[in-house]
């Protein structure tokens, strides 16, 4: 049983999303954390827990000093990069549900474009698992993931153009979102097809997420305390991770059937079962997409369409506003920004508060899926 309706999101904060923030990652973290606390109507002294990514460079004590948080009794960090984005909420929810902490702030901030750029090939392998992959030419995340995606394309008869139809929707949503880097810049399928190959014949440039600078923070507390906060609470219906023995984060080639995403299947079963919800109950799906094909796998894992049917589901307009399951209404990581998936959680909150730029009418439940972790959020 995962953490079911025992925690609420009461504050969200962010910096601007850019390509060159002009300030330190720590400053971005502090700005986002302070903004989230203020959004909740709380003070820094109310915070007694902090959660971030293993990969985050911002030390908890440094954030406390900057924001003015006197004492913290809970810290934890989530593994697997962006795949663990929704696990931050699971950690925070578990902390407040157990009483280990009462007000937990989740944060993630980086200069991922102007500072260290992810995915730059190193000169040598950096971990044992790399020995079996990197020397053969899998030296960037785009290539690592593409070797997984290509089998799906083969089995279900997709071409890169099918992935482009997702990107067009993401950019359409971003075009209407002032916080999106690609605000006011929709694209056509022809634009997508004219962008250069990154990994032939799978990914073009416009299938890849952005590189972004920015910070995001989210305040989680108990449902009881949430009632006294400034904003309308958003309840964590359920939160889970999906880690499987035969899985790999970057090299997910060893499951029996690699046209599926067993980690996402596991998350879906946990969340729907624990929250007592079904795919039809989800009004908006925020789906982590470092690369566009990941959306296809997750649409199927969460039961929004059948196996191999994402291509047609997307082509039929079902992930747009007015469709069966609007997806990534902020523009996603391709259109809004790549804050390691955390900006998708903020959009989930905006939808449930009725504050999205691409508002889905009367949204009650939002899925925020990050590959190997996921949450369902609901109106409090």
């Amino acid at each position: 049983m995962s953490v079911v309706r025992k925690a609420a999101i009461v504050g969200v904060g962010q910096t601007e999303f850019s390509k060159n923030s002009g300030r330190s990652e720590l400053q971005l973290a502090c700005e986002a954390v302070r903004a989230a606390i203020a959004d909740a109507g709380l003070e820094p002294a109310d915070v007694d827990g902090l959660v971030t990514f293993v990969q985050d460079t911002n030390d908890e004590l440094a954030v406390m000093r900057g924001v003015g948080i006197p004492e913290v009794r809970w810290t934890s960090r989530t593994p697997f990069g962006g795949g663990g984005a929704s696990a931050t909420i699971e950690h925070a929810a578990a902390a407040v549900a157990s009483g280990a902490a009462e007000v937990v702030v989740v944060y993630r901030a980086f200069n991922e474009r102007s500072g260290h750029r992810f995915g730059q090939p190193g000169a040598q392998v950096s971990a044992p698992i790399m020995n079996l992959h990197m020397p053969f030419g899998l030296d960037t995340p785009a290539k690592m993931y593409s070797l997984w995606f290509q089998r799906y394309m083969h089995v279900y008869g997709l071409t890169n153009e099918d992935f482009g139809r997702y990107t067009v929707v993401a950019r359409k949503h971003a075009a209407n979102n002032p916080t999106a880097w690609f605000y006011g810049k929709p694209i056509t399928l022809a634009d997508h097809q004219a962008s250069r190959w990154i990994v032939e014949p799978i990914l073009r440039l416009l299938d890849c997420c952005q590189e972004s600078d920015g910070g995001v923070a989210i305040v989680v507390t108990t449902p009881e305390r949430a009632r006294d906060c400034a904003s309308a609470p958003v309840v964590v219906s359920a939160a889970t991770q999906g880690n499987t023995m035969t899985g790999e984060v970057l090299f997910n080639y060893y499951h029996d059937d690699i046209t599926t995403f067993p980690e996402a299947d596991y998350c879906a079963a946990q969340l729907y079962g624990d929250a007592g919800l079904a795919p039809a109950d989800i009004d908006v799906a925020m789906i982590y997409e470092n690369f566009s094909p990941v959306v296809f796998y997750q649409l199927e894992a969460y039961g929004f369409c059948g196996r191999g049917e994402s291509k047609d589901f997307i082509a039929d307009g079902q992930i747009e506003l007015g469709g069966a399951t609007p997806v990534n209404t902020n523009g996603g990581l391709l259109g809004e920004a790549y804050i390691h998936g955390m900006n998708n959680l903020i959009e989930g909150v905006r939808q449930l508060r009725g504050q999205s730029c691409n508002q889905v009418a009367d949204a009650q439940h939002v899925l925020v899926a990050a590959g190997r972790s996921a949450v369902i959020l609901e109106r409090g």
Partner: protein
Amino acid sequence: MILPRPTPDDAYLWEGAAEGRLLARECAGCATLQHPPTPMCGACGSTEWTVRDLSGRGTVHSWIVSRHPSRPDEAPRVVVLVQLEEGIRMVSNLLGVPLDAVRNDMPVQVCFADYEGLAFPQFEAAQFEAAESETAA
């Protein structure tokens, strides 16, 4: 070319390649084949292991064309996920096949090539007729 830095858990692969053998780690306790290798068998808990010579025959389960983004290789490399006939999968390269002739599920056969003094197990299109006549002989 990024070279591996063999660890105690995968040194057998590179040592085998240097001898022209495609090896997989096999649990000494329950004979489970492990790839990627682990130091402890997830099936039985044994830390004792041996290696098994593989046939080197398999099929292309998936493939991509790899071009280095900033330090171009001499030629694009085809990276393949090979479904080996023993039931495990292995990432490698496909050599000698034009890009427009690469197909999913095409049969392939291991070959070995040296890079900066280290032997790599790689694959080429399977030569079925030759293999059959050799077997017949």
